[in-house]
Each structure stands twice: as C-alpha cells, then as structure tokens.
C-alpha cells in the first residue's frame, strides 16, 4: 500500500501498466516491483524447481524472486528483475514459470515431491534404466527446465557497444561514491560516475538520515548538481559495471531504453561499454543477506533494508502489519521508519540478547523465527522467545542477517575476499585488482560518516597518484551509525529453510552435500546448484558457506568462497555481441564492378570478405553449369572479362628491392628485366608453400607483386616480418596498392583486338609480348597493362585507379559484347585454370611443398630464400610425398568430388590404404569430361595408371585415370599468342 507523504515518486504523474493481464497504476519514479507492492500484489512468480509462490525480496539488481517477462511490441524479455525495471506508461509484464496460472501452478506438485527431489537427486535418479535417459528423462527435464521464454522471433531491438576513457571510474553513487567522484572532480581529474539506478544517491535515497545538516537525498542532489556542471565529469545512470579486466578495463551495461514504451528511432535498448580507467574506486555498497529459517520464502518476506527502500524511496509499505527479524542493529531502522510512517510494526524479533529499541515498537530479544504461514502470501510468523513458541500475525516480514559488502568486482581477476569477523562478512583484499580501490560499505565500512571519509580519502590518494595536488575540504557531517552484529545464519526447526531462493536450495541440501563428502565450497555449489542462478548467489553465498562450514566443522574463512566471475549482473548476449549481427558481423568488400555486376544479376560468392560474381546468367539459362560452360567456351573462343582486383597487389620500391624479393621468392627476381613479369612462389620458414603470384618489374628499383586474394594480408605481414626482423639492412619499402587499382582480366583470342579498341596507343606482340608489362592510357587515364594469363589464353590484365573501375568494366563489357564475348565469373575462371593445371589455395593449402606441386626446380640454387633449407628436409621431398596430378574419370560421365580420397583400384577404401585426395574439380566443356586436380602418392610416376576415388560421405566411387595436371594446350601456344 502507498504511504502518504513518503517516497521520491512523482504522484502527479500516473502510469498505467499491466501485470498478469490485470491493469494497475503506479507513479513516475516507481519500479515495477514498488508499483506492484503498492497495489498489494505480493505474489510475483514461482520458484525454479519447486514452483513455490514467491514475492519481491530485495529492491536491487540482486533480486532472486521477482523475475517477470516484459513484453515490448514483437519482442519479449524474460527474467527481467521487477526491482530494476523502471515503470513506464503501458508497460506489460507477466509472471513466468507458472502454468496454468500464477495462483494455481501445476508444477507446484514438485513442492509436494520435494523429499524425492533433494540436491543431486537427478544424478542418482536418472541413472537407470539406461534406455530411459533419451526417451523419457531428458524430454521431461528439458520441458521443465529453463526460466522464462524468448519470443522465438527475430530480435528487432538494437544493442550497441561503445568505449569510454577516464582518469577515475567511480562505481556506485552512494555516499562513498558521490564523495569520491566530487573529490576527484574537484581535483581536476576526468571522472566517470556509474550507478545502476536511474537516480543517484544509493542508500541515501532509502534511509532516513541527515548528511551535512540536510536529508541524505538533498545532500546527494546538491552533489549531483555540482557534478553535472563540471565538464570533466560524466554521469552514467542505469549503468552497471559488470566486470573488471586487465589494464584498467571495465565492462559496463547501460540500460538505455528499458524504461521507454516508444523509443526514438535508432536508440539502442542497451549499450555495453568498455571503460578504460587509469584508476577506479569501487563504491558498490553492500547487499543485505537473509537468515535461513523454516519457510522463509513466502511472498511478503523480504530484506529489512528493501522494506526501508520501498517505504522511503517509493512511499510503499509491503504490508499492513510489519514484523522484522534480525541479528544486527541495522534491522531496527526498519522498525523505526515504519513506526514513524504510521505503519503498524507488530514485532522486532532480534536474536541478540541485549537489544535496545530505537523507536516505539515491541522487541523480542533473544528470539528467532521458527516458522511462517500463508500459502500465497505471509499471514503469520511463529517465533521462539524465552523457550516458548508464539505466533504473531503479520503480512510482511523484513529480515536482516547482516550486510555482505559487494566485493564481486575485486575478485574478477582471481582475488579472494578476506573474512572480517567484526562485521561477520567478507571484505575485499587490498590490491586484488590493480588500480582499483574500495570505499564505503563495499570495503566493510558501514557508517555513512565512514563511507564519506573513505570515498574522500581514496579520491584524494588517486589524485595525488595521478599528479594532481588536490585541495582538502571539510567532510560533511553524517550519522556514525554503529553497526553491531551477532553472526546468525540459520534457525533449527521443522520445515525447509531456503538459502538460494532462485534455485530452491535449502539448508538441508547443503548439509546433505557435506554428508556426501562434497566438502569443498566449489563442489557443494555444483552439487546443490546453490549460487548458479541468475543472481549468481548474491543473496545466498555467504549463508550457504556458513552452513557448510558448520556442517563440516570448519570456520567460515577456512571454508572460503566460490569464485566471483563477471558479469556482476545478467548481461544479454545481444549486448555483449552488440554491433556484430547482420551487416555488422564483418566488413563487406565490394569490387568497383559490383554495381554493373549486380545489374547483370550475377549471383555473388564471398571470397575472403570480397563479394565476387559466381557467373553471369543469360536469358534461358536455368542452371549455373549452363552459364559456366558458356563463359568458359567464350573465353577459349573470343574474349572474356573478369574483375581480378581482389588479388593482393604490393608496390615495392628501393635500391635493395630486388635483393629483398630474391630473399622472399624461391626463384630469381633480380634477373627479371624492366617491363617483364615473372611467376613466383613464396615459402614459409618451414619450407611449405605460402603463396604464389606474379612479380612485375616496373622500374630499375620498382616492382609490383601480386598475391592470391586469400593471402594478401598474410604476404604483407610476412614481408613486414622479413624486413623488420631478418633483413632490416635492406633499403626497401613496400605498400599495399590492392585497393588503389581496379584490375580486369581480358582473356581470349580476341583480347588484344579488344584492348586496341580502347587503349590510347595500340599494342602489339612486340610491345607487349607474353609476360610483358608497362604503362598504358585508356580514356585519358593512366593505367597499367600486364600480359599474363590465368586462363591459358592470350590474355592481359588491365589496371586503372579504382575510381575509374566501374567505368572501365562497363566499357570492357561493351567492347566484348561487340566481339561475341562478355563477362565471366569465378566458376568459369576455375574451369579455365583447372584445364591449364594452374593452382589455387585449394592446392597450396599450407601443407604442400614446391616439390609436391611440381615446382621444386624453381628453387634457385644461386641464392638463398626463406624456406629453402627447410624445404629440402627428408620427408618433404621424394616418392613418399603426395604429388600434384590431374585426374579424369575413366567413364567420362562419372563424377569426381573434391575432398574425396584416392585408393588403389583393388584396395579397400580405408584410412590405412589412403593414396591421396582430390583438391579441385570441374566439368570441362573443352575436354568434355569432368577433370580434377589431386595429390597422389608419388603421383608424377603414376601418370597413366588407374586409381579409385572414393567419397565416403556420399558413397560415390569413381575409377580415374591419372594424368598430367595440364589438360589443355600443354605447349602454351595459345597464351603466347
């Protein structure tokens, strides 16, 4: 119910929302949780395993019970914590894990079966009969498992990633965080202040206490006004720092549009920030823990501090009769605040013997809660006091088992927290994360005065550390608030006492784990699933290990904690991978001929990141093979045009360029004459082939080499390595010009005629002989012409600056069309090169040597080169190697399949009899047969033999004739013109 005069909500701004198909009203400033509590909706959801009725337990991101599914247009977001979901007009939420309804949940039957469903039951139960696993158990478990449901539709929400940098990252904007931020800001440091709430102030918004003579909220607002005015401060609300990583990098999730019904176009739902901070101060506060007592999970039972938050921040009382159960002085603040707000406080049950009330309420000292009642909401608690049981009617119970400092981030780089017996909690270890200091409750300092002082001191130290001379100023006065606690973890009594509310783990489960010798806290966690739910044990870890410590006869420090790992709160995969879907997955590289190619409706294939045309379909062609055959024949008969710009092009200049290239290539480059091109092969250090390409000598000290498309980056990197690490003495410089030149193959008997139709100066066999190169002009644009051929035809590659690529491609197509030619794509290019026995990376796949591909004789014995020595190793040469050969099916219509393996004709096709494998295959319209390239054991000595190809996946078996890899024009008469 709402409490008049309390809270920071805007009562003039009414918001309508729906929960469980019922309309409610709340106010601007509410969370979904506070609005539901204000409407006396205590039952929010069902627990995961036993489907127990559950209500709101906390007021923060640690909430284990209040998980709902929020519907937003076509999408829905399951497992939204009602405690962090800001209310907005039109919000639609529904409960989850309940069927057919929240009140009457069929799987509530699990609760009745709980004696059979204790920790580890599935490890034991589903072992037999073995055949039942796949057919019975697994389907049932899969149906019951999972929490919440996705929309199973395309996610239209936008997520983004972003980067931020600062001198100091202040994590949390409670008293210590605000103090740290303002101190660092006043010292002139660049500050980011991040807080997971939409309103900054932390516990100051939830407590009734004064800072600097005014209420905490007013003090916080004043600090924020000052921070907001400073240009060196960035305030990030709704932002949870989720992880601490190397080099002062922090992950942070900003909820950008979760509080909006309709958001502006382009606004992301969430932004995942990578924040690089020179220093950071963790001011994340502390989380109040529960006490495990029988049936402590009923709706209406929450932490005592959450009750204060709902009262003081949201003006809501979770009940009309409030009881509080605690083991520390802080719990009494709840009793005091509710009494002062006019709400009936029926009991303050304190397990400590010596207790002083701080208000007008009844205290049961030395008492404990031993039971509760109320199926869908709390109706009464039973307490044991002075040896007698007493039942007290109440509809809300606030519980405080003490505070756990939020040490999580300090443990993200494998640091372990240390036990502080004064506050019966773990506190961060100094220096656990380099550059990260901790202040306030997160460091175990529970008084506001102490928190302010620590925030100030940490920021001052950081400022000095970063070379500033911070001025000192007086700390605001605040409450000393002595925090007195007597450790108290669980109550003995009849009935189950919950520790992990989300995964339904009880004290009995922990004790059973210990009994079954899962004594390590890590083993206990995995056996019971305690701490493995979306709250990651924030509400249960310390209590659970205290119970384990007790069950195993050890102390809490010796028992230790489980490992805290990022992220601190659940983070959507979409946020972590933001920007990486659809077009953001990888860059797309487009040729300058792309527009013209698309106009011709060529299907594109992705090669590396490049989009290249597969083939150019013509009217009446219904199958790619028809187009491919036509294009291959066209090149052999007239002329074809193909964009080959994707090949790597590297410009090499310098007095030592020739010596450098000689060191890279296996063959000689120094002997190459200006105006000539040579085919070359590069090896890796280990003697295997890295790449092949051409090397053109454009000037005395000026070369241009080409690489394959796939290895362009690798070759450039290799050259950088060789120059910087091995031959820095050589005066040579190289630059990638792949992108500068648009380059087109003009191939076929009519190639020269075509070119002479567009070049400013006519070329002849004399001016451009085979493997010649030089400058040309086309349409007034300076270009380069190379007489090289990857098709086996009389062919050229014409290059112009890429800005003219589109225009030149269209021009070449026009010219070709008039000669009976046209464009050809990757499929035809592949056919032409296989017919000629030319290799690609299908053959030089990183495992083959120059010997294997029949190019060992190219390794010059007059010079050294990278990989030369290693290529001569025993085992890399000789008849035991698989060598490049050609294959033709004995029966021309039989298929050869790339990737298939080769066997002797009479041998069983098993691994032990493997004789090699097929690398490339095509149907050759020229040879009128399928032809292939393959690596065959001692292949060059087996030409003419018959070998059996077996493709095990499809079961195809084909007898093949072993051939020379050059099927077409072996003398090379056509390419020489």
């Amino acid at each position: 119910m709402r409490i008049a005069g309390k809270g920071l909500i805007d009562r003039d701004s009414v918001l309508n929302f729906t929960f469980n198909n019922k309309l409610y009203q709340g106010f601007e400033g509410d969370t979904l949780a506070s609005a539901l509590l204000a409407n006396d909706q205590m039952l929010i959801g069902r627990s995961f395993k036993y489907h127990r009725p559950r209500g709101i337990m906390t007021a923060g991101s640690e909430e284990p019970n209040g998980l709902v599914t929020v519907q937003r247009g076509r999408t829905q977001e399951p497992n939204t914590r009602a405690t962090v979901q800001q209310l907005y007009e039109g919000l639609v939420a529904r409960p989850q894990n309940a069927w057919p309804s929240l009140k009457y949940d069929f799987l509530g039957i699990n609760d009745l079966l709980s004696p059979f469903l204790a920790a580890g039951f599935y490890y034991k139960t589903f072992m037999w009969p073995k055949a039942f696993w796949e057919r019975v158990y697994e389907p049932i478990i899969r149906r019951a498992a999972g929490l919440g449901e996705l929309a199973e539709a395309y996610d239209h929400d936008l997520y983004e990633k972003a980067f931020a940098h600062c001198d100091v990252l202040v994590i949390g904007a409670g008293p210590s965080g605000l103090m740290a931020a303002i101190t660092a800001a006043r010292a002139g440091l660049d500050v980011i202040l991040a807080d997971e709430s939409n309103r900054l102030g932390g516990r100051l918004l939830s407590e009734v206490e004064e800072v600097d003579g005014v209420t905490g909220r007013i003090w916080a607002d004043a600090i924020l006004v000052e921070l907001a005015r400073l240009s060196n401060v960035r305030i990030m609300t709704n932002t949870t720092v989720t992880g601490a990583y190397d080099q002062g990098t922090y992950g942070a999730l900003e909820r950008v549009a979760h509080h909006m019904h309709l958001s502006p176009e382009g606004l992301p739902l969430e932004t995942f920030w990578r924040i690089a901070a020179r220093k950071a101060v963790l001011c994340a506060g502390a989380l109040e823990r529960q006490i495990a007592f029988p049936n402590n999970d009923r709706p209406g039972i929450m932490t005592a501090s959450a009750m204060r938050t709902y009262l003081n921040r949201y003006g809501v009382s979770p009940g009309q009769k409030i009881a509080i159960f605690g083991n520390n002085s802080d719990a009494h603040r709840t009793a005091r605040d509710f009494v002062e707000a006019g709400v009936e406080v029926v009991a303050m049950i304190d397990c400590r013997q010596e207790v002083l009330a701080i208000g007008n309420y009844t205290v049961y000292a030395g008492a404990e809660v031993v039971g509760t009642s109320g199926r869908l909401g709390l109706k009464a608690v039973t307490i044991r006091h002075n040896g007698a049981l007493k039942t007290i009617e109440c509809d809300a119970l606030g519980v405080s088992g003490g505070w756990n400092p939020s040490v999580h981030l300090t443990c993200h780089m494998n640091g372990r927290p240390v036990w502080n017996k004064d506050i019966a909690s773990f506190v961060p270890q100094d220096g656990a994360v380099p550059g990260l200091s901790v202040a306030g409750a997160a460091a175990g300092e529970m008084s506001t005065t102490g928190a302010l002082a620590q925030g100030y001191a940490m920021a001052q130290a950081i400022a000095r550390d970063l070379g500033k001379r911070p001025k000192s100023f007086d700390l605001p006065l605040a409450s000393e608030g002595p925090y007195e606690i007597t450790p108290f973890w669980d109550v003995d009594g009849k009935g189950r006492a919950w520790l992990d509310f989300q995964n339904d783990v009880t004290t009995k489960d922990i004790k059973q784990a210990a009994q079954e010798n899962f004594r390590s806290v890590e083993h206990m966690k995995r056996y019971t699933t305690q701490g493995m739910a979306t709250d990651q044990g924030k509400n249960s870890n310390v209590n659970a290990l205290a119970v384990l410590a007790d069950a195993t006869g050890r102390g809490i420090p010796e028992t230790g904690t489980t490992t805290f790992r990022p992220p601190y709160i659940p983070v959507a995969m979409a946020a972590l991978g933001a920007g990486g879907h659809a077009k953001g997955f990888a860059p797309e590289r487009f040729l300058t001929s792309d527009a013209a190619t698309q106009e011709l409706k060529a299907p594109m294939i992705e090669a590396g990141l490049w989009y290249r045309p597969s083939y150019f379909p013509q009217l009446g062609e219904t199958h790619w093979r028809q187009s491919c055959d036509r294009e291959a024949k066209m090149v052999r008969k007239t002329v074809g045009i193909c964009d080959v710009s994707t090949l790597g092009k590297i410009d090499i200049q310098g007095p030592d360029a020739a010596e450098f290239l000689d060191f890279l290539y296996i063959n000689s480059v120094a002997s190459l004459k200006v105006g000539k091109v040579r085919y070359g092969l590069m090896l890796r250090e280990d003697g295997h082939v890295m790449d092949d390409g051409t090397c053109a000598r454009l000037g005395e000290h000026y070369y241009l080499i080409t690489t394959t498309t796939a290895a362009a980056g690798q070759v450039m990197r290799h050259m950088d390595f060789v120059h910087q690490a091995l031959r820095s003495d050589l005066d040579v410089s190289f630059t990638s010009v792949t992108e500068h030149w648009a380059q087109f193959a003009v191939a076929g008997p009519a190639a020269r005629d075509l070119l002479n139709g567009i070049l400013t100066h006519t070329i002849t066999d004399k001016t451009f002989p085979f493997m010649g190169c030089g400058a040309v002009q086309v349409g007034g644009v300076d270009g380069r012409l190379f007489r090289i051929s990857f098709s086996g035809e009389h062919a050229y590659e014409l290059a112009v600056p890429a800005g003219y690529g589109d225009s030149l491609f269209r021009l070449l197509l026009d010219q070709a069309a008039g000669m009976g030619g046209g464009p050809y794509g990757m499929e035809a290019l592949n056919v032409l090169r296989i017919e000629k026995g030319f290799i690609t990376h299908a053959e030089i796949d990183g495992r083959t040597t120059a010997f294997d591909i029949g190019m060992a004789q190219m390794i010059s014995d007059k010079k050294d080169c990278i990989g030369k020595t290693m290529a001569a190793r025993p085992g890399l040469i000789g008849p035991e190697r698989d060598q490049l050969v050609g294959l033709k099916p004995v029966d021309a219509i039989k298929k050869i399949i790339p990737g298939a393996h080769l066997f002797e004709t009479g041998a069983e096709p098993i691994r032990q009899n493997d004789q090699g494998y097929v690398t490339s295959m095509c149907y050759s319209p020229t040879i009128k047969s399928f032809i292939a390239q393959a690596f065959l054991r001692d292949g060059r000595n087996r030409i003419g033999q018959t070998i059996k190809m077996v493709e095990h996946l499809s079961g195809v078996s084909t007898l093949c004739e072993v051939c020379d890899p050059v099927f077409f024009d072996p003398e090379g008469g056509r390419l020489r013109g």
Partner: protein
Amino acid sequence: MVELSFLSATGNKLPIKIGNVSATEVNATLHLVAPFHGKSTQAATVVKREMGLDWPGVHELKHRGKSYVLWFDHSHIAVMGEAPLAKLARVAAVTDVSDGWCIVDVYGSDVRDVLARLTPLDIREQHFKAGMTQRSMIMHMQASISCLEKSQFRLMVFRSMARTLLHDLTTAMESVAARAQKV
C-alpha cells in the same frame, strides 16, 4: 576516343547529416611516402620547402590549406593534396594510393560520441586533439583516424569497405541522435 568517368569510393552517397553530426566524402590525391635509408632529412627538407610543413612525427598531422601530411605507420607518412611528388621520389618511395582509401570527414558537436561507438581510441578532447592522427579500428576495419579540428575528424578505411563504413557510421550517428531525443 573512349572516356572513363570517375566514381568516388562511396558512390556519391555522401554528404549526410544525422542529428548534429555530418559526414562528407573527401576526394583528394593521397600518396604514401617512405624515405630511403639515410634520406629522411632530405625528404623532410622537400616537404618543408615545397609544402611549408614540418615532417610529421608519430601521431602528428600537419596541414596548410588543403595539403596535409600525416603519420601513417612505422615507415610511412601520408601526403594528401598537392605535393612535390617528383622531388620526393628522388629520396623516398612514393606510392599513389589516392583511389585506395575511402576518406570521410565527420563533424559536429557530438562527433566524439559517434566515434566512441566505432573505435576503442581515447577520443576525449584533451587526448585526441586537433593535429593528431592515429591508426586503429573502426568497428572491424583497420583505419586511419585524424582530428582536424575540435569537432572534426577524418576517417580513412579501404575503399572496398566504403559501404561498411557508411553502415557503421550511420548506425552510430543514429544512436547518438536518438539519445538527444531521449526523455
């Protein structure tokens, strides 16, 4: 006589303006220059004498009118606009890459917020000032990023990735513009 027409890297898809950030394409000659061994001083002298600009140190960009010199990598500087190429070529490897890069200027008061969504660089004003240039990533693309003025940056990626640059840039610009409308 045939004619070839020039098409810019973005295919004339710019300029655009989203929110208060604008993007325009820059078409300029661009050459990479790497002095030969022992020729750095001569190369710097040519640049100083002919262009009136000091040789750029690491992460430095200098300009006069529409001529720019900027650090590009461990061995190269880039020269943009009018430049004494022939004189430089006597003492340095000079490579024309004018058509190899997609060059886009982005500017406007929120430009740094846009860049914060594209590059991991520290783009705070005091850390990435006018006259600075850096090599880093724009999303998945390797890039050259230079600060020309407080609220104006020059982005360069490979020409073939121009469409991806426009996609990534507009997505970030839309996000920043939408934040300004957020209530």
